[in-house]
């Protein structure tokens, strides 16, 4: 998947801010140092990457289809395990088809009961739910960042995001938004208000566009199910 090209964004931002004025390079990724407000190329780079981080967080938090690129899977977890720290909602819970964590195990989506108490009850009284473990395995529930499951092992897909201060991570389709965002972030005392207002609006529009497709995560579905 192509991500935003930071060099191209940097060139655009430098040009919009007139940070590399003529004579010299007029479409450059680096500032000339002659424009008083924008004397550091790093400052512009960091602004772009901050906007990129904000976009990535939006993608992750809303469940946008681009969230897939950030999804990783936990190591096999036993019941009542803490889920690794992360931003955004947890994704799918999976259980192994043969109750093992071997390489040959196939991980299938877990079933969600009516409440966490169903899992607790199965674990307390397994014979009420069948003669073998197979009868009641495959169920899982997330609560307070812990997972409980009727299977010996489960694993959870979750978004893992680590800010990067050299390259962008958001999808290339968001490049125009990053240009506007970086310009908006670089507003300084005495800057041209009209120019920054325009880019602030474009930036806000892009973020709103991402958030418009917000999805409901499994953990919220579980909460809704419990009170239904």
């Amino acid at each position, binding site marked *: 998947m192509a991500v935003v090209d930071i060099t191209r964004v940097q060139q655009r931002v430098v040009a919009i801010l007139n940070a590399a004025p003529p004579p010299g390079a007029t479409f450059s990724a680096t500032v000339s140092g002659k424009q008083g407000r924008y004397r550091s190329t790093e400052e512009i780079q960091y602004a772009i990457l901050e906007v990129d981080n904000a976009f990535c967080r939006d993608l992750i938090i809303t469940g946008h289809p681009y969230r897939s690129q950030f999804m990783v899977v936990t190591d096999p977890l036993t019941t009542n395990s803490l889920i690794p720290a992360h931003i955004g909602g947890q994704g799918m819970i999976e259980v192994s088809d043969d109750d093992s964590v071997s390489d040959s195990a196939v991980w299938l989506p877990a079933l969600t*009961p009516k409440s966490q108490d*169903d899992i607790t009850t*199965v674990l307390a009284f397994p014979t*009420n739910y*069948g*003669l073998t473990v197979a*009868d009641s395995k495959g*169920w899982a529930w997330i609560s307070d960042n812990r997972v409980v499951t009727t299977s010996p092992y489960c694993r959870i897909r979750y978004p893992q995001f680590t800010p990067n201060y050299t390259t962008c991570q958001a999808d290339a389709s968001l490049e125009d938004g990053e240009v506007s965002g970086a310009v908006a972030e670089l507003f300084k005392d005495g800057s041209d208000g009209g120019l920054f207002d325009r880019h602030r609006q474009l930036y806000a529009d892009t973020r709103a566009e991402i958030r418009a497709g917000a999805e409901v995560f499994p953990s919220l579905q579980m909460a809704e199910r419990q009170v*239904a």
Partner: protein
Amino acid sequence: MSSLSYAAIGDLVRQRLNLPVSTRLRMQSLVGNALQRLGNQFAQNPYNRQYLLSDRATTTVALAGGKADLTTLINTSQIELEYLMFGYIWHPSYTSPLQWKRGPDIGAIQGPFDGVFPHCWLEGIHLYAKGTNNAVLSGTLSLACPYIPTLAQLPTQLENDLIDACVGLARETPDDYMETPGHPA
């Protein structure tokens, strides 16, 4: 014999009730009691009863002092004491099954045919047996009597009856088993 699992039954029951998958575990918990209900219902019906009669070759109990303690058969073979008289009990000395005796005088006063037929009666969980001429019997009794099947013992023909029994139990439960149909699965 049925190859259905508790999980499969739970799923069939919740579908019959138009409930979401999330309720399957709760439906599974009904299977054990539904088997008991099914066993009771079938024991009461002379035709259906034949499906759930214990195997006389393996359902046996030893007589000691003219009586047999049925505790083990109740617990392990799940014979139904209340329907025992609807089954057959054999003693190896006789080709015909023992005759059932009942009444307040059983075992105390000789009945009109007690000298002709081997007979038996129940006192609590003890089965008393006497032969012809009122001889106290010893040895081993074989029972073909109504019992509560396990899921593995359930004849395939009774699978639908089991689902019906589960559905009946679910409908008797005044909680959220019967939540609004159409709840998101």
